[in-house]
């Protein structure tokens, strides 16, 4: 079982190291031929506008969109969440997404880098699924997107109190799609990578 990591730009290495800790093999994906034989794919953090341009110029957008639509498990973090969303606010007008997740996201919804932050989340669903204690889940938000709306089919695995009151979903799952607004790969906590590895093995 090998998980592909989209390796056009961004924090590819951190995802590879996270799966290596779990003894799950990964391979970089830079061209259409690299998609063959994958059991799942990761869309890492990076700049979503750059990634979407490079997906086009590398002729990856259509074939990757097709395998995701076909049910290949996909895990997107930050820019990866933006690429999976149904619609993007405050993006570029020509920015394309795979639309695999019934969510509307706002790019840089938490502000500029000065407002980037670390926090700790509660994720009881993950703890129950992994049969691990529900300890605080460290989360690093870097110019992160905000999930503005999530459709009825979207399961919220963790949320964060929003500045306007209420709560923003920050870890979501819908069928074979897992996505986070934060970067679990930048912390030592492997719960989200474990959950994704289970989705892939299923």
């Amino acid at each position, binding site marked *: 079982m090998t998980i592909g990591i989209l*390796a*056009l*730009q*961004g*924090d*590819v*290495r*951190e995802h590879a190291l996270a799966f290596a800790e779990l003894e799950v093999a990964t391979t970089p994906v*830079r*061209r259409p031929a690299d998609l063959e034989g994958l059991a799942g794919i990761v869309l890492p*953090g*990076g*700049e979503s*506008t*750059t990634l979407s*341009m*490079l997906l086009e*110029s*590398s002729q990856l957008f259509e074939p990757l969109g097709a395998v995701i639509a076909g049910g290949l498990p996909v895990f997107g973090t*930050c*820019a990866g969440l933006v690429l999976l969303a149904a619609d993007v606010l*405050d*993006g*570029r007008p020509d920015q394309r997404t795979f639309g695999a997740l019934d969510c509307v996201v706002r*790019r*840089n919804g938490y*502000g*500029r*880098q*000065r*407002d*980037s*932050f*670390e*926090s*700790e*989340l*509660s*994720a*009881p*669903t993950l703890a129950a699924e992994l049969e691990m204690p529900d300890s*605080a889940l460290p989360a*690093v938000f*870097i*110019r992160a997107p905000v999930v503005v709306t999530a459709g009825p089919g979207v*399961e*919220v*695995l*963790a*949320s*964060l*109190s929003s500045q306007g009151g209420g*709560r923003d*979903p920050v870890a979501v799952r819908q069928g074979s799609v897992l996505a986070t607004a934060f*970067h679990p790969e*930048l912390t030592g906590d492997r719960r989200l990578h474990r959950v994704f590895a289970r989705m892939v093995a299923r």
Partner: protein
Amino acid sequence: MTSDAAGAAPESERSTGTFTVKRGLADMLRGGVIMDVVTADQAKIAEDAGAVSVMALERVPADIRRDGGVARMSDPALIEAIQEAVTIPVMAKARIGHFAEAQVLQALAVDYIDESEVLTPADEAHHIDKWAFSVPFVCGATNLGEALRRISEGAAMIRSKGEAGTGNIVEAVRHLRSIIGDIRRLTQADGPEQYGWAKHLSAPIGLVQEIARTGQLPVPLFCAGGIATPSDAALVMQLGAEAVFVGSGIFKSSDPPRMARAIVEATTHYEDAEHVAKVSRGLGEAMRGEEMTEITERLADRGW
């Protein structure tokens, strides 16, 4: 919504400006191209071409070199116009040691501050105490000792200095080879030798020991200074740079949108020579460039 939506679990505070958050943005820029821009229109061209970030400044290094005089932080109005024009992170430069310029850049909410030798230094002995800021800093380095001194002052990203504004890659290659070569050699050093390295590099022993153990810098290493073609980008990425800064190389070329896009693609596909060849075809003229012996002052010598 899940059970925590009821607010059962207490939530920790949001911690901003931590080192994880600072270096995290550098991690997100890896494999990308950061482009110097002097107008909002150029910033749009850079974003359209796939830049991961833009560096807002009043003159590109080639013009600073030509014009002479004191080069300072950019006009806040220019930085704000560029922030308005694009959605990608915006960086700006402060003079070496000029912490008041850096405070202004932080107040403007730029995403990264470059304490840069391209501007005229404000302090002949000290760099900015970068730990005092919540906005992250990138600093230039010509060798491993300089890189470690900047990291010890709080830099969350290191870039080679190269020789800005020359369009000549030779200095960036020298700096990258020096930094990466010394990291490799350091991993072979035993305990007592590591103290010798710390003395030789004029660098803190803690960082020297960390590199001997991990074999890498504790922050990302990018390349800057002299990149003018897609092949230049592919060269420095293969040498071990994790992303590239392109200063004069784009907007001093004959077709900036195409050159910008070609360098972006070459930085991603740096191991795929056929792809680099494809994007290099018919690009028009690269910036003119200068031989090192033609240069009277080396910007890379600024910084201590």
